[in-house]
């Protein structure tokens, strides 16, 4: 299944994942410490510059990933226009966009395998309760089963359409959940047969 990493290779793809994440944390803390609109605008230039340095298609994808924020932007714009506090509104919107752009920049320039390796490294202190092998297996299982379960949900929806003039609605939730439960039992048996997950 496709990840959100950009297929366009940029200079940032070569940087280590932990470094980018640390920089992102520091940048986000900085963003929330700034109050003035001018300072916020200057700070927002950083992710904009980083994204612009990666090329046109990268930039377009980055902007497209901002689309889910439009309801929040609309609410803030209307709210602050109505109150006459456009400076405050600008600060909120710039901070939101800068934070999301920076975070998405890290996501788009880091491979899935690097992120998973980082997660497993971070989970090492939990080794007594959560074995690293179990964590890796769990992640692999989720990734492997999402397309399988999607296909089965679609099959259930088609079975519904063959039996009913109405569109499939909430009622396919039950067979989908039951299928997940049955799959879980079967995969557990398969795991045990192969030596367990510990």
């Amino acid at each position: 299944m496709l990840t959100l990493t950009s297929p366009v290779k940029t200079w940032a793809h070569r940087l280590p994942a932990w470094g980018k994440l640390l920089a992102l944390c520091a940048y986000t803390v900085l963003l929330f410490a700034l109050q003035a609109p001018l300072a916020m605008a200057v700070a927002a230039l950083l992710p904009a510059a980083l994204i612009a340095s990666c090329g046109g298609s990268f930039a377009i994808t980055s902007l497209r990933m901002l689309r889910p924020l439009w309801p929040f932007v609309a609410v803030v714009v209307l709210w602050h226009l109505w109150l006459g506090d456009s400076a405050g509104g600008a600060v909120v919107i710039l901070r939101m966009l800068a934070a999301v752009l920076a975070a998405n920049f890290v996501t788009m320039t880091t491979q899935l395998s690097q992120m998973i390796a980082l997660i497993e490294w971070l989970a090492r202190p939990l080794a007594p309760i959560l074995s690293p092998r179990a964590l890796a297996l769990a992640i692999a299982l989720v990734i492997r089963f999402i397309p399988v379960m999607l296909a089965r949900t679609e099959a259930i929806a088609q079975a519904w359409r063959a039996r009913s003039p109405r569109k499939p609605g909430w009622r396919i939730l039950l067979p989908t959940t039951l299928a997940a439960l049955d799959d879980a039992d079967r995969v557990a048996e398969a795991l045990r047969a192969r030596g367990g997950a510990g």
Partner: protein
Amino acid sequence: MEKNLTHIALFAALIAVLGLVPKIELLSGVPITAQSMGVMLCGTVLGARRGALAVLLFLVLVAVGLPLLAGGRGGLGVFASPSVGFLIGFPVAAFVAGFIVERWTAPVGIAAFAGAVLGGIVVLYAFGIPGMAFMLDKSLAEATALSTPFFPGDLIKAGLTALVTRAIAQMRPGALLSRG
């Protein structure tokens, strides 16, 4: 041990699938995303601990860069958006929902509905609203006002979660891990 692992992993996948299928249309044609139903189901079907772990696993995969949130959203950007409070509240919501179903000896359907409402709505919004208030520089009351349009849809989702959990208890009693 393997059973716990596979149930947690597959229900994390279920939450993703419920975000990827087209929006379910309800009775009156109001579209809702089924993803938060997946979170409630994790709690009511798997129980508190496993349900919370399943949701946490789902969030780890979203953070790692997979577009598993409804609408194909994912990556670290969603944790920087105003709905981050809801994301953080998801595993807690599943835990509370599962806790109620595990501990309350009422019939499964009623316990599941109570769990879905208390966990999936009350606790979830207790995390989501302050998160939104903080990110948007609004007061708690204002953030609550912004969230109220979603309450009816969430109540319906809680009801559907209860129905599905009760049906599972009837059809596969052994599979309902929250009630042994």
